[in-house]
């Protein structure tokens, strides 16, 4: 399988008069056709900003991609003009957001909001676009789609709205779907439905998905590969089975440990002490060192690089230098 999306050394900074805040600091991501990749990390680690950079919606003024390439089918999106980028957005790359309650326009009908994308990108006339919108809504599980099309968003529940968002995102058969915390605002049963739907659609249309989330459960459900981000950098990348089996980076380990287990003895939930450092006060050396259980002297003075452990596995930690896989001792 060839690479659909290649993000190389992406740097998205927020520049104000007083300071420069590196929100994304040299991130590499590769997504193959039809593949689902999870992008995981705490709040403030730069995962949302990475996804907004890919679709070209970094908040402006202030935010800016200062370096790196975003190649979609070999075309560098960073170099595209705003006009050309508008043709990519919604057609080649679609995005769904965390808050289904506020992500739909309250004064337009659900149908109108789907139809307008279809008419805009696929140049269909209104009646064909309406028919397509009805089919899309049926596909995401609205049996009475011809009625739903005339409803306003406030009459739908959160789960229904998120399914409308998915229908809207899938309307032009995108190559890449970016899902930014798609299930975070939904309750658990609805979460499962939405995830199932996304899985089914990605298989059916061979859509690649970049799943941005802090929820490892969602990742294990949907993704094939996981990229863990910390403080604007990738700290670990692995196949989803491998990472749950044996996380390499102490941060990944901490993340997995902090997920409550249903089976087994009830113990105190583990957490990683401290917070993500704010981008303007990055610690010297390894960015995770101040919170790391196994940090040693070198971690505070030198910055580790992303090491390749195998073809599918990368980690940014001194414990694994020169292919030496001792692993940090899991306590």
């Amino acid at each position: 399988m060839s690479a659909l999306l290649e993000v190389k050394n992406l740097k998205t900074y927020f520049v104000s008069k007083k300071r420069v805040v590196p929100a994304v600091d040299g991130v590499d991501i590769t997504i193959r056709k039809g593949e689902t990749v999870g992008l995981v990390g705490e709040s403030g680690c730069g995962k949302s900003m990475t996804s907004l950079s890919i679709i070209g919606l970094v908040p402006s003024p202030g935010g800016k991609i200062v370096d790196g390439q975003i190649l979609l089918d070999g075309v560098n999106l960073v170099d595209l003009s705003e006009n050309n980028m508008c043709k990519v957005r919604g057609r080649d790359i679609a995005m769904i957001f965390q808050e289904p309650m506020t992500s739909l326009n309250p004064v337009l009908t659900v149908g109108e909001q789907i139809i307008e994308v279809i008419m805009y990108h696929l140049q269909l006339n209104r009646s064909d676009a309406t028919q397509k919108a009805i089919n899309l809504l049926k596909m995401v599980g609205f049996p009475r789609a011809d009625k739903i099309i005339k409803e306003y968003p406030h009459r739908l529940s959160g789960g229904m709205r998120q399914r409308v968002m998915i229908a809207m995102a899938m309307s032009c058969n995108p190559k890449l779907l970016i899902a930014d915390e798609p299930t975070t605002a939904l309750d658990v049963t609805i979460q499962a439905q939405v995830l199932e739907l996304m899985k089914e659609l990605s298989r059916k249309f061979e859509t690649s998905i970049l799943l941005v989330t802090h929820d490892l459960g969602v990742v294990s459900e949907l993704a094939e590969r996981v990229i863990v981000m910390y403080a604007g950098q990738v700290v670990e990348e692995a196949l989803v089975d491998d990472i749950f089996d044996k996380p390499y980076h102490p941060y990944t380990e901490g993340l997995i440990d902090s997920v409550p287990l249903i089976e087994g003895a009830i113990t105190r939930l583990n957490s990683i002490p401290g917070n993500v450092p704010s981008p303007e006060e990055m610690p010297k050396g390894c960015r995770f060192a101040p919170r790391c259980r196994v940090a040693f002297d070198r971690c505070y003075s030198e910055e580790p690089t992303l090491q390749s452990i195998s073809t599918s596995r990368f980690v940014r930690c001194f414990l694994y230098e020169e292919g030496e896989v001792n692993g940090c001792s899991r306590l």
Partner: protein
Amino acid sequence: MITYIVRRIMMAIPLLFGITILSFGIIQIAPGDPTALMIDPMIRDKDLVAYKELYGLNDPIYVQYLKWVGNMIQGNFGDSLIRQGVAVNELIMARLPNTLLLMLVSTILAIFISIPIGIISATKQNSLADYTFTFFSFLGIATPNFWIGLVLIMFLSVHLGWFPTGGVATLNEPFSIWDRIHHLILPSIVLATADVAGLTRYIRSSMLDVLKQDFIRTARAKGFKQKKVVYKHALRNGLIPVITIFGLMLPSFIGGSVVVEKIFGWPGIGMLFFDAAFQRDYPVIMAITVIASALVVIGNLLADILYAIFDPRIEY
């Protein structure tokens, strides 16, 4: 919707009565009465009493009020005390069209100028254009209408002679649309100025608020260009809060027109009110008060109806 409108109108009736009681009382408190202006200073006391008797001014206030209300309900606002023998209804009907025309034109002017300015200020926040519009908005809010009116008359009418200095039409000339428009331009600009200034600020802040919403990000993620995002997705949402302001603005046109009509010699309700207030012409003052209060009620009702049209989340 219909039942809602009917209910609102029914609720407005006691409110209107309250307003008439208050204003009737307040005029009586003001010193002097209509007789003071029209009567020969050498008049004998006996004749003065007879005169007042004739107009019912010697009755207790509540009797005067009840008589007035009785007539008002039947649509009769009585006769003017100053212009003797002329019915108030007649006076008002002769001038109402002039005022309504001025109000309509300046409202349309205000809306069509302030919406684009508000949008530009919001989409290009903190730009030179935004700062310029902001500066002139505050200037417009701070400058009194009559001053702008006088300055415009002085420069554009007296010095440059581009516009007539006042009136609705050139005297002793046959009716022509162009002539009417020519006379309308200055007073409607002056009347619209303060509203443009205020509305621009409201539209700007409301649009800024909407442009930060999640659904705007969704619209951008769909690949729409800035224009479509602003006009299709943001504008309608941004105008919803402005509707309230608009409803409140409507009656203020009568108030605003008092000064503007006086300056431009515009024979409308405002000028009539101005003169009546100085002459203590009670029936005229009361009639205009009732009309103005009715406008307040209508303005609010209109705003509520517009709400329901603009915002599908609101149902009555």
